[in-house]
């Protein structure tokens, strides 16, 4: 059992930093190297879709549920896809009970934005009857073990959960929604595979996929979501600042990482 119960001490801080300066990381990785991915799907019988994703020791479980409701008046033929994240206290003594923390809100929002702006979930396909009935899709992310870089794990698990979903298909008949007996599956729900990659910065050193100790000492992070050929979302957090050249370099790196991850993880295999 690793002891992460206290905020990391100054000694550890200096140790991490001096290693990074030599291009080394405390867990032996290269600067741009990710920890191992492990993806499972459809373990939650009660969910319409689900995924368990590990990135090193970080573990996240995401489930998809749906409801049918009236559309927003200004978007009468579009469904809704919402994201929620909860940092369970069992995942780390750093997580407290209570209403969603800022960190949980940020996790949900960054994953949401990366997916939303990629037109990944096509909300127009989630309309059953204009002005009357649309799907509301809930993508809920639970952090089971916290070992750094929740955003990248949350992104992959959300995509996988959506891809693995089977949502009963409804049609509009006699002023109510009835089931056609068929299902909407991942290929209807998911249109693009936006991949988010997160970088830490300590001093003027930038690195991929921060582990927990790195995350605790870093000055800031930046998360970049990309589709095949476009940037779709960026979020900088923490008090680090980035030069324009660094940002340009990182967006390029994220495009490469996206391509590689899309190929390595082959998420479409989880479609039912």
């Amino acid at each position, binding site marked *: 059992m690793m002891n992460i119960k206290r905020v990391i001490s100054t000694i550890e801080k200096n140790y991490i930093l001096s290693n990074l300066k030599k291009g080394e990381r405390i867990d032996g990785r290269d600067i741009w190297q990710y920890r191992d991915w492990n993806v499972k799907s459809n373990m939650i019988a*009660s969910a319409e879709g689900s995924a368990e994703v590990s990135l090193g020791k970080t573990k996240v479980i995401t489930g998809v549920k749906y409801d049918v409701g009236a559309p927003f008046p200004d978007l009468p033929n579009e469904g809704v896809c919402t994201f*929620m994240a909860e940092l369970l206290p*069992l*995942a780390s003594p750093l997580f407290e009970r209570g209403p969603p923390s800022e960190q949980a809100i940020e996790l949900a929002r960054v994953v949401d934005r990366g997916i939303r702006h990629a037109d990944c979930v096509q909300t127009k396909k989630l309309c059953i009857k204009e002005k009357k009935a649309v799907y509301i899709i809930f993508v809920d992310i639970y952090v089971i*073990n916290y070992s750094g870089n929740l955003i990248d794990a949350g992104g992959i698990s959300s995509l996988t959960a959506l891809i693995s979903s089977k949502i009963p298909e409804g049609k509009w008949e006699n002023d109510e929604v009835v089931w056609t007996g068929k299902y909407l599956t991942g290929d209807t729900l998911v249109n693009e595979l936006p991949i988010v990659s997160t970088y830490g910065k300590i001093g003027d050193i930038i690195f991929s996929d921060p582990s927990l100790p790195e995350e605790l000492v870093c000055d800031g992070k930046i998360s970049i979501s990309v589709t095949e050929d476009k940037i779709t979302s960026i979020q900088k957090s923490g008090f680090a600042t980035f030069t324009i050249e660094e940002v340009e370099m990182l967006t390029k790196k994220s495009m490469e990482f996206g391509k590689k991850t899309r190929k390595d993880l082959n998420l479409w295999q989880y479609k039912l």
Partner: protein
Amino acid sequence: MPLIIKDEYPEKLFREDGKRLDGRDKNELRPIKMEVGVLENADGSAYLEWGNNKIYCAVYGPREVHPHHLAKPDRGILRVFYRMATFSVFERKRPAPGRREKEVSMVITDCLKPVLFLELYPGTSFEVFINVLDADGGTRCACVTVAALALADAGIPMRSLVTAVAIGKIDGELITDLSGIEDKAGEADLPCAMTWFNEELSLLQFDGKMDLDEFNESLGLAKEAISKIYEIQLNALKKKYIEIQEEYSGGEK
């Protein structure tokens, strides 16, 4: 807000061959899997699958009490936080903890307290976080069972383990280890837990309808089933012990 598919219950809960809908005999348990030490950041942890129940439990303690004014000068306190994932049930649960979650947390607290030596830890707290990721029948019994394991995994002194099971009544007959559908469509639900140090019941709830004879018979069935589940608990603890031993004895397998 219209719902598309009704969560309908079958008319009969026994099949023609006398088996239950999931193929079990009347007093047969669902498959159960338990593992301890599954979460690296907690002082103790356990994971359990029991039918479709999928539950993680982590224990922290003894540690400082937050908020401070809850601390007791003469003993430690036990706090259990039982939570269901939004997607763990048929209709999405709201994210905020509900009344039922608070109530079940209290029931589990009351059930676990008798095996702890809280009087030895004045001013501290033991916190048990239980997260149900997928829910099936007998969730609270599964939670008690996994929480006892996580407490043991944390190395916290205990009088004994605690083990729980739910007895039920479907189509007029008593059965062991209710599934989700049997719980919802059945006639009675009797979750109970046994503290092994005194072989007494530390959780006892009942909802439904039984006459005195049925009720007394149910208690007997519960005791029988609880003995079997206790074995699985012990094996999960042994397995970790063996793994640690193997680790220490080096390369020689």
